[in-house]
Structure formats: structure tokens, C-alpha cells
């Protein structure tokens, strides 16, 4: 470190700072509590004990000082006292002082202040009450203490999904199911316009007749067929077009469609609102600083950890993170040093491996397609071998999807090692590939289903869909979604019970090489999150065809919470590669948004393009499900109708699009301008800091050159300032200087008089 005359060293060589620096307002605003001298502390404790009425000179001094600080800090509005960084005793004195001041204000201002305070209290208590209502508060608290905030974010994400599904179910229930249920008791007339003559409207009943063997009930329960088919569970049961209540006509078909749009929209808004905070922070930071060293050192330790094991694990994970970061710096250097030849080689390898990945994905999708077609044909042709094989045929697409989702992440994590990316990018890229795989497999399943449904023996289908095989195709799609959900749940439970528990037992009791290599189960957050996002995507797609699916998903996630919690506490150790809380929140909600986007696609295609079945469901009589909306709009009164038609016309759409684009460009330009200003201000800060040090250096040099005029300096500089304003700081500053005053051989003080010579009051 170069010789710096701004900072002085004492006899022992310890660097101490210049008294001039301590006088600067920016330092004084820190309000450090130092090892004050005995008199100083006595003064403070005596003043803290007095109530507002006393007028000890020290207190008064402190008051004026604080009041001036107030004026300096809060010119117009007063920040609440609790946000000030002051010791409690001073805060209570300030509060008392504020009350005093308040009593001098006009009654209107007094009233306003007291209402503000009451409102703030009410808001605090309401928040406390609401948070006590939150589901699983104690469990999440326990997990946070043991595993930190990364895994905590997974569980609070799970809680969010439970609430979301519950709300979606309530929506569907109150707008679709409730009217049908209360129709008889509210003397409502149900109308259902079905053309019984047409070929398209034949819907053979799938209820089992005759003697039903017990295991067939189980098959029905697991596959959604048989006795479950003609229940509120599936679309086909809602054979209602309109309900005529005494006063109003309730268009159930329209309600069904609008509720679907509403729950998709609601999910979007809720997710965006939840992710807004994390997203804002990401926008402000640069890419490089996102997981920087500072963040790890100063914000790396979870202060919530109370468990000894968790603490040592956190320590080792921080260690690992820091080492990885150092490693990453080294790799960055290596990448920058790469020669041209090496770069070509790396790009070639990456190209080949990406082709391989695409090939693997294509293979998986093809096998899902084949499995779906096989399963559909087996169901339709009613091939019955025996109980287990029948179930397997039913669940074949689910089984293939689960297998693919199990194998591909392992494959991807092996491949990424050869592609030679930086460690952080490796994680993200593998994750992206897994997300893509999981969510697109559902799309492939639906696509293969639809290819079956819209493919007839002759060239064109009479009813727009294959009415011979699929008299009620929506119910069939709903059944597939139901099966996917049930199978997903069964797999999660089975893996926990049959894989994780034995693994723990083996690793703990067996000392063989296999156990050591396998190691204890890690709670891998990304894979777990993908699992539940996958389930949620199925729920979003399936709710249109199976209105009770959200309720089933709510119950499913409810149980998954407890299963995962038990598994976490008993089997797992936290991942060595930790997932940071901040980035995880953003990651979860981003993946969920991708799932939502991917869910909207099939639903909108099926609503708008594919002909709805004419034998069942509320949309009988319309060509496609979407047609309900234009028909309903045309029945509205003229004024409203013309407004809606104007809103949906091309002119409006184009101008709306143009306006949105302009707004977006403006906001982007604004963000760019702000970034520039931030950089300029940062540079200015640097220069100001240097200026300050330079000036202090010069000032100290000037002082040193004229020691005889010190007393003149003292009086003149004191005369320059308002003595009453500076005296409290004189009284405060002894505490700053008792540790320094002994360290200076000469009197290098400018305006500070040591405590015992203070004559100013």
C-alpha cells in the first residue's frame, strides 16, 4: 500500500483515519456507537432514562442535533421512526419529541398523523394475521432453519401452486358446476339441443353392465373410464346448453368457455405479479455481477439457519461455491486464451453434440407418438389380456414419458461435460434442455391424440372428427390428462418409498464401494421443480376437458408437500451445488410461465380449430367450441355489440399493436438512458472520492506547515459555524476520538477540542 498521508499510523503501525474525515457529514451520519469514555456513557444512560419533559442540556443538544439531521435528511415527509438506524433509547426519545412537536401542529395535521399511525398499525396487524393463516407456516419455518432459503423457495413455490389450483377449481366450480347443481332446486330449466337423428350424436354408454369384478372398479378409477366417465369429472357429462332460471338465462356453454379463458388469464397475472420482484432485480444488475464474490461473502450466510448440521453443510457449500467461482475465473481466462484452432475444434464438437441431442429428443418424441397410438388402439379395440397388462396399455404413454424424462437429464449432464462451457452456463443449459424435453413431451402426446381423433378411414371426416371411434373425444383427452396426473403422483410416491428410503438405508448401513459411489440422496431443486411444473402444465391443459382436475391437483400437491418434506428431512442432504434463493425464485416462475405458454397452445388450438363433439358436452350444436362467443355477442343489444365488434376488428388490433410497440420502444430507450446515467454517476462517485482524499491531504499538509496558528484556526473555524449547532457534535465526537486521540503525537485537530477543554455550549 502506498504511503498515504490521509491515513495516519500510530505507534503500533495500525492505520487510523484522519479526524477531518470523521467530521464529514457522510461519516457522522453513520452514528456509530463507540467505546465511549465513562463520562460519555453515564451521560447517555442518564438521558435515556429521562422522559420527554426534562431539559438537560445534553439532551437538548442531542435533540437539536437530531432535529437538524432530520431537516437535512427528511425535508418534507417524515420516515417512520423504526426505519432509523439509532439505538432504541434514542428512537423512543425521538418519538416523544415528535409527539411534542405534533401537539404544536394544527389539529388537522395532528389528526392526519394519528390516522396514519393507526392505519400503519392496522396494516401491520392485518399482515401478521394473514401470514398466520398461511398454510404450512410452521413446516416451512422448520425447513428454512435446517436447509436455508434455497430449498425453502421450492416449498413456498409448492404452496403457491396449491393455492393457484384451489382458486382455479373454485372458479370452475362456481361458474360451471354450481348452476347445474342448483338448477333443480332453483327451478331452472335445462335445455340441451342435440340432434338425435344425426350420426355424429351417437354416444354409447360406457358403464359396465352385468356382474362387475372388483378389479375392474380399480381399473376404472385409475383410468377414468367405466363408472367415472359419466360424472362431473369429465367434459362429456355437461350435457347442458343453457339453464333458464326464473329471471335470467344462464348460457352454460359461454360460461364454460369464458371460465377457461379466465383461469388461464388469472394464472398469468398471478405468476407475473409474483415474479415481478425478482425480474426487476435481474434487469437492474449486469450479467457478470449476478453471483459475484461480494454477494457470496456478505449475503451468503443464511442467518436463519439454526441447525448444526445445516450450518456445517452451508459452510461447505459456500466453500464449494467460492472455489467454483475461482475456478470459473481461471476458466474464463483460459477461454480468452484459446487459439483459433482450438475454437474451431470446440465449435465442431458442440455442433455434433447438439445434433445428437436433437436426435435423442426426436427419438423420444417418436416413441411417445407410437406409444400413444398403440394405447389408443388397444383401448378402442377392447383387447383384454389380463388386469395388469390392460392397465399397462392404458398407461403406456405416461410410462414412456416418465422413462424419457428420467433418462434424458442423465444423458444431458454427461454430454455437457464434453462441450466445455463455463460451469454456470453448463447448469443453465442442461436445465433448459430438460425443461424443453419435459414440456414438449406433453405437446407430442396431445398431437398424437389429435392425429388419431381427426383421422378417419375415408379422406374427410363427416363430423369433423372420427365419430365412430371417438364419439366424445374431449372426454377421451380428459381421461388421458387424468391418467397422466394420477401416474405422476404414483411415480413420485413410489420413487420416494422404493428408491430414496432404501438408498438411505444402504448408504448408512452398508460400507461397500457401491454405496460410497452412489452417495446419499441430494435434494436436487431443479429436477423437483420441473416435476411439479410438468404436473401443473398438465392441469392447465386438462382443466378444459376434465373440470375437476384442479381439485385433484390441489390434493396431489398437498400430499406431495408432506412426502417431499419427510423425504428431505430423513433422506437427503442439501445439494453441494447450491441453488441461490434469488435466482431460484426467478427460475421457478420463468419455467412456470413457459409451462403456461405451452399449455395455452393446445387449449386454444382445440377450442378454435377442432370440431367439438356433437354427442356430448355443452357445445353441442356449434361447429367449434369458440363459436359460442360470436353467437352470444350477436345476441347482445346493438350498442354493446357494436363496441365489441369494433374491439375485435382488424383496425383496432393493428392500432393496438402499433401503440404497444411504441410503448415498448419508449420503455427500452428509457432503460438505456437510465443505465447510461447510472454509469456516469458511478464514475462521478469515484472522482468525488478521489477529490475528497486529495483535498484532505492538502489540508493536512497545510496544517502541518503552520502549527503556531492552530489556536487561531480553532477559534476562526469555530466562529464560522453556528456554535449551538456544533456543540452537540463536539459532545458526540469525543466518542469518536478517544480511540484516536492517544494515537497522534501532534495536535492535528482542526476544529475539535478535546473533551475537557470544551467551552462551547
Amino acid at each position, binding site marked *: *500500500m502506498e504511503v498515504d498521508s490521509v491515513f495516519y499510523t500510530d505507534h503500533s503501525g495500525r*492505520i487510523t*483515519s484522519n479526524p477531518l474525515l*470523521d467530521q464529514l457529514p*457522510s*461519516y457522522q451520519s*453513520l452514528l456509530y*456507537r*463507540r*467505546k*465511549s469514555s465513562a463520562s460519555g*456513557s453515564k451521560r*447517555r*444512560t442518564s438521558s435515556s*432514562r429521562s422522559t420527554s419533559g426534562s431539559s438537560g442540556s445534553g439532551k437538548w443538544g442531542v435533540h437539536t442535533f437530531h432535529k437538524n439531521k432530520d431537516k437535512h435528511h427528511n425535508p418534507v415527509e417524515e420516515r*417512520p421512526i*423504526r*426505519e*432509523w*438506524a439509532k*439505538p*432504541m*433509547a434514542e*428512537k*423512543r426519545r425521538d*418519538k416523544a419529541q415528535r409527539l411534542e412537536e405534533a401537539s404544536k401542529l394544527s389539529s388537522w395535521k395532528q389528526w392526519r398523523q394519528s390516522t396514519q399511525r393507526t392505519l400503519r398499525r392496522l396494516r401491520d396487524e392485518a399482515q*401478521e394475521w394473514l401470514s398466520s393463516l398461511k398454510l404450512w407456516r410452521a413446516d416451512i419455518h422448520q425447513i428454512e432453519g435446517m436447509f436455508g*432459503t434455497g430449498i425453502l423457495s421450492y416449498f413456498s413455490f409448492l404452496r403457491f401452486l396449491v393455492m393457484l389450483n384451489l382458486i382455479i377449481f373454485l372458479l370452475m366450480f362456481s361458474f360451471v358446476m354450481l348452476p347445474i347443481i342448483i338448477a333443480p332446486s332453483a327451478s331452472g330449466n335445462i335445455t340441451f339441443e342435440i340432434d338425435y337423428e344425426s350420426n355424429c350424436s351417437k354416444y354409447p354408454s360406457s358403464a359396465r353392465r352385468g356382474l362387475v369384478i372388483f378389479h375392474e372398479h380399480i381399473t376404472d378409477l385409475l383410468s377414468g373410464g367405466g363408472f367415472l366417465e359419466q360424472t362431473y369429472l369429465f367434459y362429456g357429462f355437461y350435457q347442458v346448453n343453457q339453464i333458464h332460471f326464473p329471471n335470467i338465462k344462464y348460457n352454460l356453454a359461454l360460461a364454460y368457455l369464458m371460465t377457461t379463458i379466465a383461469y388461464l388469464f388469472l394464472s398469468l397475472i398471478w405468476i407475473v405479479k409474483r415474479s415481478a420482484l*425478482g425480474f426487476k*432485480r435481474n434487469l437492474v*444488475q449486469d450479467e457478470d455481477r449476478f453471483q*459475484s464474490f*461480494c*454477494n457470496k*461473502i*456478505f*449475503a*451468503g*450466510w*443464511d*442467518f*436463519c439457519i439454526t*441447525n448444526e448440521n*445445516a450450518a456445517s453443510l452451508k*459452510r461447505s457449500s*459456500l*466453500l464449494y461455491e*467460492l472455489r467454483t467461482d*475461482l475456478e470459473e*475465473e481461471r476458466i474464463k481466462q483460459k477461454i480468452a486464451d484459446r487459439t483459433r484452432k482450438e475454437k474451431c475444434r470446440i465449435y465442431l464438437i458442440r455442433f455434433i453434440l447438439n445434433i445428437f441431442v436433437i436426435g435423442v429428443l426426436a427419438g423420444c418424441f417418436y416413441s411417445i407418438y407410437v406409444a400413444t397410438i398403440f394405447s389408443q388402439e388397444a383401448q378402442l379395440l377392447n383387447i383384454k389380456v389380463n388386469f395388469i397388462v390392460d392397465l399397462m396399455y392404458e398407461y403406456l404413454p405416461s410410462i414412456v414419458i416418465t422413462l424419457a424424462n428420467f433418462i434424458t437429464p442423465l444423458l444431458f449432464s454427461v454430454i455437457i461435460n464434453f462441450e466445455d462451457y463455463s460451469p454456470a452456463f453448463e447448469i443453465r443449459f442442461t436445465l433448459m434442455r430438460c425443461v424443453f424435453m419435459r414440456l414438449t413431451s406433453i405437446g407430442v402426446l396431445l398431437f398424437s391424440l389429435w392425429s388419431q381423433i381427426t383421422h378417419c378411414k375415408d379422406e374427410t371426416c363427416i363430423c369433423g372428427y372420427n365419430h365412430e371411434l371417438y364419439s366424445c373425444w374431449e372426454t377421451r383427452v380428459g381421461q388421458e390428462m387424468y391418467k397422466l396426473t394420477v401416474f405422476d403422483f404414483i411415480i413420485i410416491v413410489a420413487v420416494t418409498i422404493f428408491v430414496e428410503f432404501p438408498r438411505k438405508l444402504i448408504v448408512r448401513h452398508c460400507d461397500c464401494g457401491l454405496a460410497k459411489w452412489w452417495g446419499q440422496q441430494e435434494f436436487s431443486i431443479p429436477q423437483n421443480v420441473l416435476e411439479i411444473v410438468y404436473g401443473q402444465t398438465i392441469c392447465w391443459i386438462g382443466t378444459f376437458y376434465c373440470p375437476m382436475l384442479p381439485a385433484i391437483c390441489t390434493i396431489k400437491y398437498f400430499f406431495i408437500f408432506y412426502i417431499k418434506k419427510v423425504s428431505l428431512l430423513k433422506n437427503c442432504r442439501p445439494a453441494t451445488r447450491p441453488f*441461490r*434463493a*434469488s*435466482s431460484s425464485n426467478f427460475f421457478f416462475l420463468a419455467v412456470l410461465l413457459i409451462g403456461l405458454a405451452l399449455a395455452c397452445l393446445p387449449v386454444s388450438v382445440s377450442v378454435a380449430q377442432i370440431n367439438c363433439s356433437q354427442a356430448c358436452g355443452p357445445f353441442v350444436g356449434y361447429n367449434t367450441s369458440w363459436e359460442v362467443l360470436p353467437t352470444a355477442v350477436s345476441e347482445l343489444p346493438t350498442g354493446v355489440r357494436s363496441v365489441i365488434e369494433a374491439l375485435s376488428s382488424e383496425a383496432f388490433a393493428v392500432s393496438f399493436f402499433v401503440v404497444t410497440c411504441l410503448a415498448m420502444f419508449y420503455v427500452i430507450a428509457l432503460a438505456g438512458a437510465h443505465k447510461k446515467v447510472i454509469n456516469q454517476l458511478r464514475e462521478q*462517485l*469515484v472522482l*468525488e*472520492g*478521489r477529490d475528497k*482524499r486529495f483535498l484532505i491531504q492538502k489540508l493536512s499538509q497545510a496544517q502541518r506547515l503552520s502549527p503556531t496558528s492552530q489556536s487561531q484556526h480553532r477559534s476562526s473555524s469555530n466562529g464560522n459555524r453556528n456554535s449551538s449547532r456544533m456543540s452537540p457534535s463536539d459532545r458526540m465526537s469525543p466518542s469518536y476520538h478517544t480511540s484516536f486521540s492517544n494515537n497522534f503525537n501532534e495536535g492535528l485537530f482542526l476544529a475539535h477540542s478535546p473533551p475537557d477543554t470544551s467551552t462551547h455550549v
Partner: protein
Amino acid sequence: MGNKQTIFTDEQLDAYQDCTFFTRKEILRLHGRYHELAPHLVPMDYTNEPDCKVPLSLIVNMPELKENPFRNRIVESFSEGGDGNLSFNEFVDMFSVLSEMAPRELKAIYAFKIYDFNVDNFLCKEDLEKTLNRLTKEELTPEEVELVCDKTIEEADLDGDNKLSFADFENMISRAPDFLSTFHIRI
């Protein structure tokens, strides 16, 4: 709620509610915890503001603080003389700043105090090294420690004096995404 308890007067509870981020119930609960730490020292009746302090060694063994590598510094930063003995006011203050509802600026001020081991208004390299060693229980090699400290100062130091002043620290903390969620103790 207010009339059943005899530990505090209503004005005191009022004052506490305004000066901290806790509700009345939580303040009473905190008093219970404070009393548990040293039942023979801490009186149950606080209406006349007794002047008792619980020593550092007892506070640092609280379950919330036991596993924290900075527990000594935390308690010292909130104590009046820097010696770590907390009165009830300071005890409540500490948990109020560390609660969920405290704003970032307030937490940043106290975080700076906590990490400033030699109490000189700057986070110099020795402070950083001590912080790092506490965090990792000295398992990093000295070269690694030096590298990390150099990188940290490089990232955060704005005015180029090779140490972090409070302005540098605050600026850096405002961009640290994890700070608010990790600098928080639940009690």
C-alpha cells in the same frame, strides 16, 4: 390484549410498536425470550424501566444465534458500549433490524457495522479476511483467501482506496440479490 399483561405499560408498548417492526404480541413474546436467557437477572416487571443487561455469553447461545459465525459481532454492534451486553431495548432493536420487515437501507447500515471487525468505519482487507475465515472456518488456503478478498474489493470499491467505505458497501449491497432474504433472523 393490552390490559391483561403487567410487564409493560401501554405507553411503553406503544413506543415499542412505533420504534420497531414488531406488534404487541411479538414484543411480549420477545420479553419472554429475554427473560428466559437470565431469569434471575431479568425482572418480569418492566414498567419502571429497570437497567439490567444480559451478558454476551448468554445471548450468543440462543438457538437463533448459536450457529451464526458472526454472532459475537452481531451482538456487539447492537450493544451500547460495543461490549455485547444487551439491555432489553437493544435486544428488541437487534431482532427488529434483523426481521423480515426492516428495509434494506437499515439492514445495510447494521451489516456494515457487523462486518467491520476493527471498528474503523471501513471494511479493509483484514476485515474481509476475518469475515471469510469465519464463513468457511478457515478451510480456504491463504492464497485463495487473498484472491477472494482482492476480487471482492475490486468489485465493490468505487473510490479506489482499496477498502470499502459505507457508500461502497451500500452501493454493492443494493445490487446483491440475496441480501434481504439471508440477512434475516426469525424469532
